[in-house]
């Protein structure tokens, strides 16, 4: 028995050490940092000193309109992105799962392929496709009489959502498709025997069975969305887009840390963001668990 305990400890140690070093300690350090601020001493020369400010940085962040607007942007982003992503991925998975689909392996692979493209490169490709001088898309749209400026204030949100959708649609489609394939075939046969057509089976049998997968994908998507950074960063640099350098809370934290060297404020902003993620995931898991218990 003792040998087993020792082996368990040995096998777990590398992971737990690193887990502590790159997750637990940085979280603790971020909390610590967020409680301090730099003050110019005296007349402004003689450098600055670090002083304890309690929750001062949190108040500064929450009081800053740019930071609050970042959350507004995230809300708008989720409201547009989530239905498109979940609806699109689920819809395509149902089509792929239907008896009518051909060349299933080809479609799965082709639809998944964008996920193999690094986020930064996906963003670069799409920004080039949005740029009027470079893009065959904008030219074709203009020829068709549709003038849409992807860099205008109205274009900002759709431009970012489109990039994210392109990257994540296939990935979530495969998750849903795998869950659909795992459904007990006898349940589906029973529905057919009862006279349910393909549509009816899809919406009254398959979709309800996928609720767990839907909730999980939804949760991970929202948590991922809270971290929105790379795509809008590319849009914000040199394209003349309406996307600013503090467009999302994460960009706000980055800009506070590396443009303004205000580490306390950056840490406070990051922690507020992480807390939002924690609250959301707590609420979602609670909600789905209650549902399950009621159903049981």
């Amino acid at each position, binding site marked *: 028995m003792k*040998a087993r305990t020792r*082996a368990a400890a040995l*096998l*777990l140690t*590398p*992971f*737990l050490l*690193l*887990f502590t*070093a*790159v997750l637990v300690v*940085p*979280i603790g*350090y*971020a909390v610590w940092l967020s409680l301090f601020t730099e003050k110019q001493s005296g007349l402004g020369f003689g450098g600055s000193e670090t002083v304890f400010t309690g929750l001062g940085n949190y108040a500064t962040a929450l009081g800053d309109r740019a930071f609050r607007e970042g959350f507004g942007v995230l809300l708008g982003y989720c409201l547009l992105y989530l239905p498109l992503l979940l609806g699109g991925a689920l819809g*395509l998975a149902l*089509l*792929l799962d*239907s008896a*009518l689909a*051909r060349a299933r392996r080809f*479609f799965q*692979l*082709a*639809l*998944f*392929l*964008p996920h*193999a*493209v*690094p*986020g*930064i*490169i996906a963003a*670069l*490709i799409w920004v*080039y*496709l949005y740029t009027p*001088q470079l893009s*065959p898309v*904008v030219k074709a749209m203009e020829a068709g009489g549709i003038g849409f400026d992807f860099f205008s204030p109205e274009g900002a949100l759709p431009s970012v959502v489109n990039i994210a959708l*392109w990257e994540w649609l296939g*990935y979530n489609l*495969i*998750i849903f498709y*795998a*869950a659909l394939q*795992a459904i007990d075939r006898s349940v589906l046969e029973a529905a057919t025997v009862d006279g349910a057509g393909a549509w009816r089976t899809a919406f009254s049998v398959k979709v309800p069975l996928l609720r*767990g997968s839907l909730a*999980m994908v939804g949760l991970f998507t929202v948590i991922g969305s809270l*971290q929105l*950074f790379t795509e809008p960063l590319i849009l914000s640099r*040199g394209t003349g887009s309406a996307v600013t350098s503090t467009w999302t809370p994460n960009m706000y934290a980055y800009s506070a*840390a*590396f443009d303004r060297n205000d*580490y306390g404020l950056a840490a406070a902003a*990051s*922690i507020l963001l*992480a807390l939002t*993620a924690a609250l959301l995931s707590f609420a979602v898991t609670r909600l789905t668990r209650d549902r399950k218990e009621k159903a049981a």
Partner: protein
Amino acid sequence: MSTPRSRWLSKGAVNGVLLLATCYMLFPLVWLVTAATKDAGGLLAGDAFSFEGFDLGGNLARLAAYNDGVYFRWYLNSLLYAGVGAAACALISVAAGYAFHVYDFRGKEKLFGLVLLGVLVPTTALALPMYLLASDLGIVNTYAAVLLPVLVNPFGVYLSRVLCAAYVPDEVLEAARIDGAGELRVFWSIGLRTVMPGFVTVFLFQFTAVWNNFFLPLVMLSDQKLFPLSLGLYAWNSNAHAEPDYYPLVVTGSLLAVVPLVLAFVSLQRHWRAGLTAGSVK
């Protein structure tokens, strides 16, 4: 009941929609391939699908020559970060997942719950404190600054535990113990071997994650020689708006950066499918 005609129609509709979605997914990639064959003038003409200004060879030559071949240095860096990082991460994750599956100890499920919480922590929220800690330790702007954080993947541990439960046969472990093999020996020659497909899955996921990683190197590195591809292309793109000659470099460089991942995914389909399926079953 449906007539053959209506069945034929719905078959067309279903596959038509799938085909349309496929076009949306593949169009930017096709554009990337054709755009990489053009010089700056041809690119700016915006007609990506003509052969005007065809200069793939020139683009590749310029890519290789620019700044003493710094692009291929970035390429090697990316291979190093992703290859070494993912291999070590997969080994560490599988060891931990195996221990969680095989052994019983006090507080095991609590510890596992803590690890799972780690999945939910926004990684970008960690980058800043990690940067400051790294600068205290004096490892900012080194390979270690990017390599160390990517060794940890809580989801990899979760996946490994699930896959160990599916693959590792308890009776065989027991038989090996009776034959006198030590616990670590049992892990190394039976556990790890039987869960090899799981190891490859974790490796593949982490390789992609590290290859795609942008935020961490952006924060940690300022020396161009240490850049991975993602950061290097980002730096070039920042120049392109003022200096259009950078456009072909960014486009051709992006194409070459995408190729290994696409090849890996096409050839290792079985493994990423396994990972996604395990992720979808609760």
